């Protein structure tokens, strides 16, 4: 579904992503792990179109999207979350979700002025869906709160919620678990699994929470210094000595 070929991203001589090549299969949840600064987020930024690579190619469903703008990629079903939450801080939580669906009738000036009925109908549907999402994320009580006032973890939940507002095909999740309460996280895992199985979403998931990776991901890719270190199922990756050394550390590696 997604093929990344020899992707390079340089920042003033420093290679954050260095000839990275990997693929994600349709219908899978691919785990992406690696030490801090390995280039995982940068890779996401490249795939989602937030930045342009120095060189290399990205193919998505057979199409070369290397130079497509971020919004166009979204409309092709490629949705991402941010590691550091990028909520719309002055919009309410509900609005944060409602603004997500693409091609809303009310986004066109002329429809607003002249096709009021269609706009309203659209809105009702969007709003229903937004409430559903809020309920699932246990955020209904803050629906009318400005998103900027949410707690750190709530913001991460909102990030995740946005991906649930559209009919995505490939979802890039950047550390959805960081800062999220563990009890809730277990439920999120279930939801991701459901989205994957029932709606056929494909995921790429960056996480440092090994429990989550173990539960959900197959395959798991470990990056280091901007490039793929090893790819395989969780057990293989986890027991690789290089991964242990660079990423897990002895103790955790044993415990996990």
């Amino acid at each position, binding site marked *: 579904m997604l093929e990344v070929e020899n992707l390079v991203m340089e920042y003033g001589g420093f290679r954050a992503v260095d000839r990275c090549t990997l693929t994600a299969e349709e219908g899978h949840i691919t785990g992406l792990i690696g030490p801090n600064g390995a280039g995982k987020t940068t890779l996401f930024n490249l795939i989602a179109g937030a930045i342009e690579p120095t060189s290399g190619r990205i193919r998505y469903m057979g199409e070369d999207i290397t130079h497509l703008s*971020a919004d166009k990629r979204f409309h092709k079903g490629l949705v991402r979350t941010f590691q550091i939450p990028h909520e719309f801080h002055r919009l309410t939580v509900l609005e944060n979700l409602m603004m997500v669906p693409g091609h809303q009738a009310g986004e066109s000036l002329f429809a607003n002025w002249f096709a009021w009925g269609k706009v309203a109908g659209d809105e009702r549907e969007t709003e229903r869906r937004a409430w559903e999402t809020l309920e699932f994320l246990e955020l209904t009580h803050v629906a009318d709160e400005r998103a900027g006032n949410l707690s750190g973890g709530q913001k991460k939940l909102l990030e995740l919620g946005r991906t649930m507002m559209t009919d995505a095909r490939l979802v890039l999740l950047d550390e959805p678990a960081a800062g999220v309460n563990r009890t809730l996280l277990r439920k999120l895992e279930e939801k991701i699994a459901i989205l994957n199985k029932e709606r056929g979403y494909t995921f790429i998931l960056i996480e440092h929470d090994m429990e989550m990776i173990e539960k959900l991901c197959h395959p798991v890719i470990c990056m280091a210094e901007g490039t793929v270190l090893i790819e395989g199922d969780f057990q293989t990756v986890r027991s690789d000595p290089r991964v242990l050394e660079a990423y897990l550390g002895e103790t955790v590696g044993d415990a996990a």
Partner: protein
Amino acid sequence: MEWIGLLNYAVFMAIFICIYGLLALGLNIQWGFTGLFNAGIAGFFAVGAYASAILTTPEAAGRIGGFDLPVPVGWAGAMVLAAAIAWPIGKICLRFRSDYLAIATIGVAEIIRLVVKSEDWLTNSARGVTNIPRPFGDLPYVQSQLAYLALVGGILLVVYLLVERQIAAPWGRMMRAIRDNELAARAMGKDVPFRRLEAFIFGAALMGLGGALFAHLNRAITPEAIDPMVATFLVWIMLILGGSGNNRGAILGVAVVWVIWSFSEILTDQFPPEIAIKAKYIRIFLIGLMLQLVLRFRPEGILPEPQRGVSGKKDL
């Protein structure tokens, strides 16, 4: 007699408030809802004023013109031309972030001002364009003022309703999202450059219309009308005092500033005539001071931006 005079003055102020209200609404679309720091209002004001002036005036020696078109055509032309000028400017400048955009637009407005001031063939340079027809201009003073007020008031109302509707709709929500976080808006599939351009052009068209209405009110337009102080900064003060992000606030802000403006003169007219001129300086001081006081006690503006999209308001 006295109260008729006051009424006449009130009518005049109302006309001005309507015209500047258009400018403030245009700026509100750009800044209040989209976060575009346009500090070149004077430029679009000028383009609108001169476009309509040139389109509707009879032949004049030394400059292009002589189209002598009906006034509504001139006004439409003003909007179209202001929008057309805004398009390339927006294309180039909207890539910059807030303060850079501000200075870039100031620059463009200054260049427009210098062109207007220097090009004989186009604008009759520093001498300006005169003999601009004024709708209902042939009526006696009071009637003609009232008629013009009805006209600009009607236009302002229509514009206000259009803007309100568009802001309350998903369009407005999207724009506020873009204002809050451009990167995330892009990731959520919004074509940010296009949308910002859309808002910029729409706001600019309103500013152009405001310029045209102003030119026809005075039957003349000269480069002095597009000084940044009165055509840019003043509008900013109005919007911020009134409450950016709130259309009624924007219009109220215009009214408040004109009232401060007038009120300060009435205050300083109490000084003895020997210092009549010093009194005018003190008046400027008072205007500055009153501005500070309003900011002090209403820093979000007189009508702050409402928290939109609160779910109680479901019947959208």
